């Protein structure tokens, strides 16, 4: 019998009034996987993430993580169970230093300041933020703050990391570095779910891609096969902006 999946979400619905941003989506992730989550703007990817992470409670559905039912558990319980995430719009602690931001994450597993600080410094090394350790977090640009969010999330020593467009706003060289960095995280044994609009990221990182459209999973499988799936092409072309983005990434000028 295969081991129980690390994450199992079934029939997730998130309704805002009568509008269902997530409409019966499900996802199963085994330990050690990298799953790419794609879909046009407004497909419900971030809302789905927020449900998975306990940031918002799903209207319906069931979420199991690391052997526990966590459907209605608050976000801090998810973190304690080993789930960490970054936010699409970064929410760093602006008035605290970069190091202090990461220490807040590190305190989860290291109650003593000295240990938390040491752990946080390691995470700054790993994420290449060591030189900005004493800078005010609010002074970083958006890519810097996204990076800080990853450092902070890693400091909680997660088993599963959810990245919501963490590489948005990077130039092609930086994207390539970042892909290498995420592979490094994977090599350390962290399971990942990655939301990205940049196709290169999904194609080169993910072992499996899941495509969202209008709150539902419309395709799932090997990334290369999935992006050629007519239903997926249709979903993207139906939305001109996202469609352009997808085509541009696939056929760089």
């Amino acid at each position: 019998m295969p081991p129980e999946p690390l994450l199992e979400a079934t029939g997730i619905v998130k309704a805002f009034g009568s509008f269902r941003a997530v409409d019966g989506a499900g996802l199963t992730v085994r330990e050690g996987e990298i799953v790419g989550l794609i879909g046009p703007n407004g497909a419900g990817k971030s809302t789905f993430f927020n449900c998975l992470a306990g940031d918002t409670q799903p209207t319906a559905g069931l979420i199991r993580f690391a052997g526990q039912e966590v459907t209605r558990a608050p976000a801090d319980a998810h973190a304690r169970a080993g789930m960490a995430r970054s936010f699409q719009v970064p929410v760093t602690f602006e008035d605290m230093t970069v190091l202090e931001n990461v220490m807040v994450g590190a305190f989860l597993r290291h109650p003593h300041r000295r240990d938390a600080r040491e752990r946080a410094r390691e995470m700054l090394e790993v994420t290449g933020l060591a030189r900005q350790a004493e800078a005010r977090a609010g002074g970083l640009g958006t890519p810097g703050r996204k990076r800080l969010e990853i450092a902070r999330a890693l400091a909680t020593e997660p088993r599963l990391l959810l990245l919501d467009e963490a590489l948005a706003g990077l130039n092609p060289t930086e994207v390539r570095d970042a892909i290498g960095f995420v592979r490094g995280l994977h090599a350390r044994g962290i399971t990942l779910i990655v939301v990205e609009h940049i196709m290169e990221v999904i194609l080169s990182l993910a072992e499996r891609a899941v495509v969202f459209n209008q709150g539902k999973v419309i395709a799932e499988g090997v990334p290369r096969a999935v992006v050629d799936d007519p239903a997926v092409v249709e979903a993207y072309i139906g939305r001109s902006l996202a469609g352009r983005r997808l085509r541009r990434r696939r056929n760089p000028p």
Partner: protein
Amino acid sequence: MRIGLGVAAVVLLLAAPAAVGDPFIQRVAALVLLTAISASAWNLIGGYAGQVSIGHAVFFGAGAYASLLVFKLFAWPPIAGAPFGIAVSLVLALLIGVPTFRLRGHYFSMATIAVAELIRIVVGNWPLLGAAVGLMGPAVPRGLADLSFLSPLPYFYIFAAVEAALLWVTWAMARSRTGYYLRAVRAGERAALSLGVPVLRYKLVALLLSAGFTALAGSLYAVMVGYVDPESVLGILVSVQMVIVAALGGAGTLFGPVLGAVILVPVQQATNAAFGGSGSGLTYIVYGAIILAIARFRPGGLLELLHWRPRRAA
């Protein structure tokens, strides 16, 4: 060297009121410290945790009334009422905090005002607590335990000891996990939760600590003044003063409330002396002006202006 200078400065400041010998100045110095205690207590929840209470008078009043009530009922020394005042404050803090801290937004601030005003009105109509007239302490000191002194100096030293203890607690908290978690809560609850911070629990811890010390400040006030009534210990000005003193010096900093008290209390005393009476109308105007000035120029308070923030705990 730095520490040596600091110790010398503290010793000088502590000795100064005794050396000056003028009772008016000694009294102002004692009031500065008492004000610093309540503002430092407020700072734990309003500054560090960023949950702005505008009803801390309810805790101050609980301490003040408890002290004079145990005297009235059992003829105990007023300071013996402090533990009861603290206990009542902790219960009130839970009653305010548990329902409102779950909600995002300004519910906590609004609830603190509402509860404080409600309690002020109830107390003002409650004969056991002297209704609108209030309660009196011992007319003549019956012994040292009454802590009733003619000179303001003993109060100055008692308050200095309490403020030192409170600053130590604040300092230790600020550099511990609790301090980091509270600052994270203030900076963004959503992010704090995502990092495993039990936000509700930490807000409650900060509120309980803050309420307890505020009640102690109220008891000390009652012990020194020997008289309480609803307006003087439960009025909205009592709450607003704690906010203003802390914000003026620098909310969420260790010494901000002390600096705020050192500036504001002498100004208050001088205007009261110049314009007579309690000058409460004028007080409102001065407070309003300070709030506008802080909002307009220095959200971080004067400590930020002076770049005199104590070095970071990290």
